[in-house]
């Protein structure tokens, strides 16, 4: 018998979770041995993964500050994972104390942890939802409570779109979110890719295989494919570029070469 859609999924801690693996890359201990095992395997194939995740976080920080500079103080961070440090609301609040943030994740453990972290924090909340179902995200109580969709919102899709395979219509999901946002909204996006960095196709295949085995298939995409996610947005300078190259705070010549893998960009909805 098929499980009705309203019947809940159970939680299986015997399989790795993308968000806990991510935490491990970032030196956190919000993870279990099964996650660390998966992370170690991935790092054997692609040792630069922790640096890539750091670059993601660093880009996100710069992008959030950029958003606040543009006057955008509402944030919708989809695929937020396990909050460790330098989270969106912390970065945003540092620049603008009134900033409002809604985190979204579909991992129930990440959601539970976020809820604990955000307890007592005003104007920030976590919503349990999935990027594959944008209409549910937009209809969520947290979004309705905290965000005014008639005003610009910064939509953060940091290191999440590569977990949506083409069959799950990632473009339609982004387009649906874009259409729901007011003019002046921003799309902040990073995406895994083997283009640009020093990684080989074998490494790319190995990592993709590893995530497939984890039950969270990962699809790296080309720069052109990543640019297409910005359909309907005007790309802010310098466009879709390797993460460290997006409006760096300091010269990037000391960056680890591995972090030039993948792309980042910010789009502006006219």
């Amino acid at each position, binding site marked *: 018998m098929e499980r*009705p859609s309203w*019947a809940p999924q159970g939680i299986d801690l015997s399989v790795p979770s993308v968000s806990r693996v991510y935490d491990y890359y970032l*030196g*956190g*201990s919000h993870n279990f041995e099964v996650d660390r095992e998966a992370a170690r395997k991935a790092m054997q194939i692609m040792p630069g993964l922790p640096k890539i995740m750091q670059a993601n976080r660093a880009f996100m920080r710069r992008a959030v500050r950029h958003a606040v500079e543009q006057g955008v103080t509402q944030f919708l961070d989809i695929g937020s994972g396990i909050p460790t440090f330098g989270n969106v609301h912390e970065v945003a609040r540092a620049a603008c104390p009134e900033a409002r943030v809604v985190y979204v994740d579909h991992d129930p*453990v*990440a959601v539970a*942890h976020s*809820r*604990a972290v955000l307890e007592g924090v005003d104007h920030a909340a976590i919503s349990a939802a999935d990027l594959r179902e944008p209409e549910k995200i937009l209809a969520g109580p947290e979004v309705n409570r905290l965000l005014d969709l008639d005003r610009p919102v910064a939509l953060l899709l940091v290191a999440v779109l590569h977990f949506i395979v083409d069959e799950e219509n990632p473009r339609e999901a982004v387009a649906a979110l874009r259409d729901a946002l007011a003019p002046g909204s921003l799309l902040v996006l990073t995406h895994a890719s083997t283009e640009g960095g020093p990684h080989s196709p074998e490494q790319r295949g190995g990592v993709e295989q590893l995530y497939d085995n984890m039950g969270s298939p990962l699809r790296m995409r080309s720069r052109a494919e990543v640019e297409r996610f910005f359909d309907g947005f005007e790309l802010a300078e310098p466009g879709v570029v390797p993460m460290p190259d997006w409006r760096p705070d300091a010269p990037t010549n000391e960056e680890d070469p591995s972090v030039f893998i993948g792309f980042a960009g910010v789009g502006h909805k006219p």
Partner: protein
Amino acid sequence: MTATQTATGAASTADGVAGSVQDGPEDRLRRFAAIWSRAIYPATATSMTAKEFEEHLGGLGRKLRDALLARPFDPSPALGVGAGLVQAHCTDAHTLPRTLGVIDAYLLLYCSPGKVLPADEGRARCARLQHSLAAGYAQALRERTLCEQEAISRAALRAQAEAEKALHDSEARFRAMFRDAAVGIGIADIEGNILDVNDALSRMFGGWDHQLRSRKVTDFWHPEDTPGVWKVHDELLRGERDHYQVEKPYYRKDATVLWTNLTVSLLRDTEGEPRYTLAVLEDITERRLLNDRLRHQATHDALTGLPNRPQFFERLEAALAPRHGEARFGLCYLDLDGFKAVNDSLGHAVGDQLLVAVADRLHACATSADQLMARIGGDEFVALIENPASHEDVVALADRILDALSTPVRIEGRDLTVRGSIGIVDGTAGELSAAAVLRSADITMYRAKAAGGNRYALSDPEADIRAISRHSLTNSLPTALERGEFFIEYQPLVRLSDGSVHGAEALVRWCHPLRGVLGPDQFIPLAENTGLIVPLGRWVLEQAVRQARTWQLEQRDARPVLINVNLSPAQLHHPGLVTDTLQVLREAELEPTALCLEVTESALIGAEEDLLRPLRQLADLGVAIALDDFGTGYSNLANLRRMPLSTLKLDRSFTRGMQHTPADPVDIKIVEGIVSLAHTLDLDVTVEGVETGMQAEHLRVLGCDTAQGWYYARPGPPEQLHSLSLADAT
């Protein structure tokens, strides 16, 4: 790369800077932080920029410097420095040795200006600060790790609890659905043991809760199960199908039948192995009973309860369907004799009771399930035997039926005798259509009836063909009259005394478009049966009378010619006979004395006065009446006196013996007697079928008055008579 190498590399850069810029304590501290930052920044997970990170380390470096120079010396602030590294996400173990290496190489160099401390003292303090920093780092990392582990475990537990609660809620909803559903639901394991049933299901079975639970699925076998349903169930258990749906009967607790619309689904485990079967039952007993009742009404006769015509045809068609191996069928077609009279005289209520009684007796005659008794019409019943062992079995059933009917039926204190005629058809399936079999049975039944009734007749293909051809002629009779397919031939009547033409008999012919010219014997009985004889007879009378008038006008001087027209029994009974006849005569301007109506002897046998009255009226008006076919109908000779007759027409059988010499002496005697009797009664005698001159001579000698036959002329067109009389006249 080791921590020491990094530290050395960094130091050389710092030295280069040291010489060229300001050299205050803060500047030196900043340079120390810069070296430190370059040593460990690559190993951190911080999202701070290198500059931010360097500033963070500047604060930690200040603590180290202050502790290094403090008096008295206390290394404990270095604990906080170690913790500060962890706080800045320097959780990678490499950050510790690199940090210690930087302190070892550069702390005294940048933070103990002007040899504030003696060399040994400085080195010792530096070492102790490193020990404390390492301890602080380890302790903070441990704290942080434990804290994060606890946080994530707590989150996992909370998520799990939420999922379980959601699961529980969902299960509660399922349970409520199961408990309160209007349909019956039952769950069994793959061995067929019933695990749970809901209240609706128990109620359907008449409150059979615990008995249901302790039974096995296969215990619910029912004799009326759809064939093959248990095979399908086995397929489901083997996982070859995921569900099936069927209408299934069950026994209720009180042994009555429960009809259900049953849907059985297979529940599999996560590996896809069959685990449980889920049965959902909807009570359709009422609907089913209604269907049965409607079906019974549609297939049974409301009065007698016997299967009706459609049902009979369905069974007959099935019995006749071609199949492997030879199969026979037998059919008895029963029509009650004289049932109409019962209905007419005693009323329909009695007629209906009689039919019910007959149906009951027929029903009792069926001795096995392959014998079907049905009522297919008012008083028409059929008995169908599917695959009888022999022809004799079919005949035996007909005998049983006749025997069953032989005892009178008592209705409202009256004993009614019931008789029936049965047509029997039997044969091999696959040869005849149902319609053909029934038609043959019908024809055969009529033969039994024609033979006097209260008997059976066996089908005979030739008799069938005759009947069928009769039937088709009967059907085409009415249009034949409209289309003018009838015509009349005239056969002269000759006066024996002088050989002159005395008159002519009008004989109707049918020019059938397919069969050619048909004589009256082939269609008059049919017209008689259908009543068409009345308009046809009138048409013949009109034509003949008009022709007679034509002859009169043509030969004014000659003696008037008599026209003989046949009158059928049905015409005789027709109330308009006298008026119609007179009107025809009047229209043709022919005097009544020129007309002779021929009536058959059989039509007048035992005739009542009522029947004779119109003839008498016509006779009184001058119309001659001839008794046709005299001598074939066992006439009561005494009756001849009171009939308004003028002529006897002697049947040809009496004169056949006179065609040749020597004439049959008995025939001569008989004819002599008849002529004598007729003349005594003042009747003329006409002889039919005269074929030879010898015959004619004998008859003349015997005193017969007129004759007709091939010897004189065959029936022919009116012109023939004209030429005959002309010849006669010359």
